[in-house]
Every structure is written in structure tokens, then in C-alpha cells.
């Protein structure tokens, strides 16, 4: 598959700058590590947040961090898409007989995020052992669904952000609110926020699907609706479909900036 070839190329080129790469991986590890330390210290001080315990929030945090780290690794090309439009490189993409999505996806790859990923998976493991709930196969599957749901939703947002570049040439900083801001928001169960934030991130951008809804099932707060809450992550994945649709529309409307 063409994407694997792209990936191989990127890893080879990155490993040419080894010292810098290791520093970046370490740096990414510590960003996530300190963010988690911050949450730990806050629970040390306050005990709980709106009825959620530290273990539950830690799980929430770990899921969103894992999903975001993986998304950033692979969907970096969409994040950096404005460069492609400004340089006129997208014209070349259009000339090739492959889908635009997979080419842009393959245009960049951020290996340094494995540092963050390592920390997230470690936290995930810690949080899973802290939770006072018995782990069953259904719960483990739900957890995996949650991570994939997160990856799909964040990739969808990155695609939307890139699509904006077709019309504005420059990327809009506002999209960061939904990517990096989204990662920050979804680190806590959405129920702690104001109603309008919770509604927005349930019905417009479905963060709730990998956040508090399946979490309620995992910690046994679902109150009989187990199957429903278990399946919410799958619903969340559908978010990527309209994003791809909008991207196709954007490609059709694209006018080159020339070069």
C-alpha cells in the first residue's frame, strides 16, 4: 500500500537527525507527564471533581491522550496542510492517480509523538488498575473502541481544518480550539463543564462518545443501559464521514495559488 511506503520514507528521513529526534520524543513524553502530574496534584488538593474520582479522570485523560497522540502521528499532514496550499504542492497531489486523502495523510508523519503515546499508554494501564471495577472482555473492548473513536473524531477535525485552507489559503487558528483545546477539554468528563459546552461536544463534535458516556459504562454508572453506552464510541466514529464529504467538496472547489 502506498501509505506504508510514505511512512517508511518519513521514518528514514527523521532518523537522520537522531539527537534532535530523541530530545523531541523525551519532550513529548514530559508534556503529557507534567499534564498528568498537574491533574494528580489537583486531586491531592481537592479530592474529587463533580463526583468523579481520580482513577476515573485519569482514565479519561489517558484515553484522549492516546487517541490524540496517534492522530497527531498520522494525520500531521492535515495539520500542516496550509504549507501545501501556499507552496502550490497540492497541484502535484492532484496530478497523481491516487486519492488526495491518502496522499495528504502520507505527506507528513510526526514520529516524536511516540513519546507522548508511551506516556499515555502507561497512564492508561495505571488508571485501569486504579479503577475499582472488575474488568471484563466487554469493558476492554469498549476501551479499545473509545481510543479508536477518539482517533476518528480528531482526524475528522484535522481534515476539516485542512479543508478550510481551500477557501482561506491560510489555516485558521480557531481550529486549534477543537484540536488542542479538544484534547484539553476531553481530559475531564464533559459533565463538569457548563451545559452549552457539554451539548456542543455531544451533538456537534461528538467528544462525549469517547468521553463520559462509555466511561459511565466502564465504572458501572450506566444504570442498566450498558449496551447503549457501550456502543456510543462506534457512533462517534461516524463523525469522520461528513468530514470526508466536506473535504471532497473542498477539493472540487480548489483554485491553485500558483507557484
Amino acid at each position: 500500500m502506498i501509505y506504508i511506503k510514505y511512512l517508511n520514507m518519513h521514518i528514514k528521513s527523521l532518523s537522520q537527525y537522531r539527537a534532535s529526534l530523541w530530545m523531541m520524543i523525551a519532550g513529548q513524553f514530559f508534556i503529557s507527564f507534567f499534564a498528568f502530574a498537574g491533574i494528580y496534584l489537583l486531586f491531592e488538593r481537592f479530592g474529587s471533581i463533580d463526583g468523579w474520582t481520580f482513577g476515573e479522570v485519569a482514565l479519561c485523560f489517558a484515553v484522549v491522550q492516546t487517541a490524540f497522540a496517534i492522530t497527531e502521528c498520522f494525520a500531521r499532514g492535515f495539520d500542516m496542510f496550509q504549507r501545501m496550499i501556499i507552496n502550490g504542492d497540492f497541484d502535484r497531489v492532484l496530478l497523481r492517480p491516487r486519492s488526495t486523502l491518502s496522499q495528504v495523510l502520507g505527506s507528513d508523519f510526526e514520529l516524536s509523538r511516540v513519546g507522548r503515546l508511551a506516556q499515555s499508554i502507561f497512564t492508561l494501564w495505571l488508571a485501569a488498575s486504579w479503577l475499582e471495577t472488575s474488568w471484563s472482555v466487554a469493558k476492554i473492548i469498549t476501551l479499545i473502541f473509545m481510543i479508536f473513536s477518539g482517533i476518528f473524531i480528531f482526524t475528522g477535525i484535522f481534515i476539516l481544518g485542512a479543508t478550510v485552507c481551500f477557501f482561506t489559503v491560510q489555516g485558521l487558528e480557531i481550529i486549534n480550539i477543537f484540536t488542542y483545546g479538544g484534547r484539553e477539554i476531553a481530559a475531564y468528563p464533559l459533565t463538569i463543564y457548563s451545559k452549552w459546552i457539554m451539548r456542543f461536544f455531544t451533538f456537534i463534535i461528538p467528544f462525549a462518545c469517547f468521553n463520559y458516556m462509555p466511561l459511565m459504562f466502564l465504572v458501572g454508572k450506566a444504570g442498566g443501559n450498558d449496551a447503549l453506552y457501550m456502543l456510543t464510541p462506534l457512533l462517534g466514529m461516524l463523525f469522520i464521514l461528513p468530514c470526508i464529504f466536506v473535504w471532497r467538496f473542498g477539493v472540487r472547489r480548489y483554485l491553485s495559488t500558483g507557484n
Partner: protein
Amino acid sequence: MKPYIALFRMRMIAGMQYRAAAWAGAATQFFWGLIFIMIYSAFYRSSAVEPPMRWNQLATYIWLQQMFLFIVMIWAQDNELLRHVTDGNVAYELCRPYDLFKIWCARLLAFRLSSSFLRFLPILIIAFLLPAQYKMSPPVSLGAAGLFLISLSLGLLIVTAVSMFIYILTIITLSPVGSRLIISVAADFLMGAVIPIPLMPASLQRVLDWFPFRYISDLPFRIYSGSIAGGDALFQMGVQVAWIIGLFMLGRLSFNKVMRRVVIQGG
């Protein structure tokens, strides 16, 4: 001194040109502040014990952090300057009959000030107009406001001195990404940008007192809200001055050392 002041003014004017970017930045930072406030407000709602910061002090701390983000954050760096090192343009700078260390200081100061000038006012106005739950409070007294401004300026000098080390490291490693990331990640936590320092356990706070980072933002913000005042505030501002002198001297020494061995590759 004259050429450096002229350069500073030039970079200030240049930095103030990016108004649209500044508006977008202010909007993003405002949103960011709002999210933090909601998280802390949920923590305060569920707290069994009295937190060490009053709610309005905490809200003010967060808004000040967002308002002066470009003054206090280590990760905010002049990318053009970092590129000068990697693409070799630093060679031209070295040919000029000026002191490169001072040139960089002037540019860094101008970058931080001009970026903040454009952003802080909209956030300030909106933060004061918010409903009581999210609102920012005025400084406790006129004296506190004065001390806050002095101490924030001293903090700006500390951040500039620390930034010089990122540039010096970039000259050695030739890639700005790694050194910048490591220094700013550590600094973020140590200066109270991840969670406000007064909310940390007392033992950790005592450790942070020994690092320069707390004196960049935590001190001025707490002087503003009155949790550090009087003789204590003056003493800690003395510590700020000591750090500025120490860091700039150390920066100068390492800069001279690195510059003696600098190799320009190709052209």
C-alpha cells in the same frame, strides 16, 4: 546602546503589524482561559476543605496568565531568529560591528512586548465584563498594581535571559526543536503554567522557590491579587533582580564560549 534601542523600536513596529493574527490569538487564549476556569470551578465546587486561593484570586491568576501569555511563556520564541541559526544567516549578523548577544536580547524583548501589546487588551476587557463566576478582579490596591507592573517587567527580563539559552543550545545542536521543547516543557510546570503554584503541596512549593521560573509569572500574578504583599513582595522582587543578573552573566559567558567555536557551513 543606541543601535540596540533603534533595533528594538524597529522590531516593535514590525511586530505590531500582525493584527489579524493577534485577534485570532486573543480569541483562542480567551477560550483557553474559559476552559481552565470551568475545570477549576468544578474542583472548587466539590472541594471538602478550604482551598489555599480564594476563587476570585484563582480566576484572576488564570486570566493574567492568558493575557500575558507572550510575556511569560518560554515556548513563545521568535522563530525568525531561530531560523537565522539553522539557515546560516547568523553569519551576516556576525559580520556587523554590533554585539550579537545584545541584538538578540533587543529582538526578543521586542517580540514578547509587541505580541502581548496586541493581545492583552481585548482579553482584559472581556475578562472584566464576564459574569461574576468567571470574572477577573482588579488589583487589590494601587500600590499592588504598581508593584505588579515592576515585577512583571522583571519577569520579562528573566524570561529573556532564559530564552538566550535556547538560542545558545540551538547554535550547538543546529535544531531548535528539541532544546526549545525540553526547556519550555520543564519551565511550564516549574512556573505554574500547568497548575497555579499556590495549589501545589507546600513541600513542592518550597522546591520551586529555588528555581528562577516561579519569579517569571507566579510572583507578579500573586502581587496583583494581594496574596504576596509588603516586605515579602519587595524581598522576592530582590530575588528577581538577583536571578536577572546571574542568568544574564551566565548567558553571556556561554555565548562567548560558543561563539568562539562557531563554524559557518557553506554559503
